[in-house]
């Protein structure tokens, strides 16, 4: 099967034909030759799912330093009971409502990166989200995944670069040229017909697409108008068909997030050839009465991601998926007077997948050495991105991110054998 994810393989072929290549491909090919990389069918089917926890999730009550006395001092009302949390080791535990994440951790499929943040943290949701989504602390730019899309050469004209569940294309996936399908409900992602004359609908759509395909090529926006509608219609038909045919291996939670993940699973199986997906859950801005809200949200997240992963596993795709959570910031170390917490800094990221190496990565942020009451980050979030880009997507991470960031070894060893070229590249 030819698709964009085979671009490394195709690169080798092109090189042997002696043609010039963009520098990143040359590097990949070079790496491939050094590492003796051969066609890796698993690579072609890889999927990356970005999971946003919007509002600023309280990291200290997600990945909990449950034996640290200082934690209980800072959180007199909000500290989670030591006999309720789900211990990962003697210092660190997961929030009690994340039982499914605990299972996945014990199975070896969940990595926890602690203390993730960036220098000079911004406390605005908006600005901090922008920093996370662009992987830039300076002037606004395209999304970090969008910049990755820009570097991928799509040799067989896939309709879409990404699929996002929700109502707007997330900045992370946006670039000048990326085509992101934003699917709120699959049934809305289609060209509607005239209910009174259903049998005319195919002819009506054909006529409509013809109006677009024949729009004069020299006119402004013609390049887009000529191609986009047919591509959209095609992808819509595939998604509609997948929604009809797809049989999940496990039931999904009956929550909007659960439904969203089910739609993702359908999209993955629709044959669209999409590699990157985005989904989000909001409501983490817990300035007041945090305990109940966060417990509900984290349980919701853990259950839905678990169902999605089990579903993928049931379809033999566990090794192909990598999910990554992020939130624009963690929250203030000390609770506030409303049984909540205010905007803070560093927080944990979770990575889930059949090729993920379970464990704790990075350092838990100090609870004594604070910066104006805020946690000091220990891992730059771009280290996680760089690892995903390079070791999961096989992309030139430093080029996409504009700088070099340390890699974290959360991609499982079995995969690293396969991905020897990238490992070799990252070592240089």
């Amino acid at each position, binding site marked *: 099967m030819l698709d964009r994810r085979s671009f490394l393989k195709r690169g080798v072929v092109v090189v042997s034909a002696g043609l010039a290549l963009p520098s990143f491909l040359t590097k990949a090919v070079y790496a491939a030759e050094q590492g003796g990389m051969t066609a890796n069918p698993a690579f072609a089917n890889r999927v990356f799912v970005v999971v946003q926890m919007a509002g600023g999730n309280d990291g200290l009550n997600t990945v909990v330093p449950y034996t640290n006395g200082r934690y209980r001092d800072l959180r007199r009302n909000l500290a989670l009971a030591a006999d309720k949390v789900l211990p990962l080791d003697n210092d660190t535990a997961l929030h009690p409502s994340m039982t499914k994440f605990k299972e996945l951790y014990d199975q070896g499929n969940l990595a926890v990166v602690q203390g993730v943040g960036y220098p000079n943290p911004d406390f605005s949701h908006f600005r901090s989200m922008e920093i996370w989504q662009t992987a830039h602390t300076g*002037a606004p730019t395209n999304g970090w995944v969008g910049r990755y899309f820009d570097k991928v050469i799509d040799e067989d004209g896939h309709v879409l670069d990404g699929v996002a569940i929700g109502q707007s294309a997330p900045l992370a996936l946006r670039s000048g040229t990326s085509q992101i399908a*934003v699917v709120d409900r699959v049934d809305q992602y289609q060209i509607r017909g005239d209910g*009174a*004359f259903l049998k005319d609908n195919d002819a009506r759509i054909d006529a409509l697409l013809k109006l677009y395909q024949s729009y004069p090529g020299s006119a402004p926006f013609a390049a887009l108008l000529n191609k986009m509608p047919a591509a*959209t219609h095609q992808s819509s038909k595939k998604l509609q068909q997948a929604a009809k045919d797809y049989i999940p291996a496990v039931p999904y939670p009956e929550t909007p997030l659960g439904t969203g993940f089910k739609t993702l699973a359908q999209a993955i199986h629709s044959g669209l050839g999409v590699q990157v997906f985005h989904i989000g859950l909001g409501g983490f801005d817990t300035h007041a009465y945090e305990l109940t809200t966060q417990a509900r949200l984290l349980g919701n997240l853990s259950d839905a991601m678990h169902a999605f992963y089990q579903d993928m596993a049931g379809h033999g795709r566990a090794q192909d998926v990598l999910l990554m959570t992020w939130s624009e910031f963690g929250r203030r170390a000390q609770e506030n007077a409303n049984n909540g917490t205010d905007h803070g800094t560093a927080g944990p990221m979770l990575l889930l997948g059949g090729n993920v190496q379970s464990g704790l990565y990075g350092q838990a942020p100090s609870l004594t050495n604070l910066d104006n009451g805020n946690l000091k980050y220990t891992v730059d979030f771009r280290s996680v991105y760089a690892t995903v880009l390079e070791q999961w997507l096989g992309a030139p991470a430093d080029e996409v991110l504009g700088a070099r960031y340390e890699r974290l070894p959360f991609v499982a060893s079995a995969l690293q054998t396969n991905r020897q070229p990238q490992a070799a590249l990252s070592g240089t």
Partner: protein
Amino acid sequence: MAVSGDVKDTVQRIGRRGLLGAGLLAALSGADGGMQLQAAEATPNPLDDARVRTAHVLRRAGFGASPAEIDQFVAMGYQPTVDWLLFSEDRPDAADALVEPFVYDPTPDSNPPTGKEGKQREAFKRWWLLRMRYTSRPLVEKMTLFWHGLLTSGFGKVNSVPYLQQQNELLRANALGSYQSMLIGVSKDPAMLLWLDGNNSRKRSPNENYGRELMELFSMGIGNYTEEDVKSAARAFTGYLVNQQTGKVEFRPREWDEGEKTFLGQTGRWDGNDIIDIICRQRTTAEYISKRLFSFFAYRNPAPATVSRLADVFQTSGYNIRMVMREIFLSPEFVSPQAYRALVKSPVELVVGTLRTLDLDTDADGLPYQTRIMGQDIFNPPNVAGWPGGAAWLSNSVWLQRINWLNSMVTKRNGPEGTILAMNEGAGTPAGLLHAYTRDLVDGVLEPDRRAAIEGLALQGAPATLTPQFLNRQARHAVYLLLASPDYQLA
């Protein structure tokens, strides 16, 4: 060149009347290389036609108009139409009579919450969409929409209907006035103080957000100032804070940094007004804002000479927005082929424009949701730079929302389809009716082979004269195709 002249005339006739067959078009501008070259040399300009030109300026300087209104403006003439649009404040606004004023209810939501705040936000958005639909000062509302995209603020950070309402009124009051006064107003506007953190700015720790965006987005554009200028501006703008109890902006002298600052090479004890004064003396400001205006109203990437001419008008008129807009609408560029269908209708333009073009009445219920899923949630811009527009309005998912909403205008039960189809009842024959729709919805400017795509569906087996069956089936297919066409997506 005689041949190209003929081609031009013929193409225009096709454009206006659309009565020629597809075969003739192929001969005129189609496959044959030699003919194609000659046709290209002729570059027929649809805007040479008075009716097309009038519809064009009414779309750009407003939200489009019904066929009957266009007829009236054609009779009035182009320049009088531009002046009617530009000088409208001395006549009553129909929106004032037809649209109930929006009044925010400040009493807190009950316990348990009923979502009252969300409903008020929705009502506020509806109020503005209704104003756009019913106004008889379309340019004022259109300018207000432009300023809302440039000098923007949103619920995401402002979190207050009254503050955004106040900002909306500020933008409307200054919509065609002095840009310098506009900037002074905006710098003391509660929504803007919250949106760009002026309200977090103190003498001891000035916040740079507003100072930076003022220069980057609102006046000079990036690259025309230094980080030191940003810091100086931030210091100068300190002292204005929102009193959340009264909702008013107060000047607190103790929070104003009265010290000496050097800004764009000039040193003094500047305050915010001084900074704006210095900014407005920069040629780059006149050029930057001129370019933004031209790009929104005419076409993107204007030639430097065009921008320079507009900037001259801006500077010599004391930053009079109305004078620059007049220069734009009366410029040869504005009626050049380059300007025709050169912009993508924003969701608000599409929705409001469709209602105005089809002369459909509305209470705007559900319309804020529609523009939101099409990518433009008013009072909720994606970021400080407003809506990117252009190709972003045509990404696959939002395009589906656009054409599906247009579909619903044509097909939904108990909807306005009767009104749409009644629009040209006098047309007599099915072909005449299609011709009339093509004129009303896409200026009659539709290449014959593309017109044929519509006719193929709509005129197949059509009766000789209009019948209810024809209206109900084929005519509504045709109206749908015209509304969903690429041509209609463009302004």
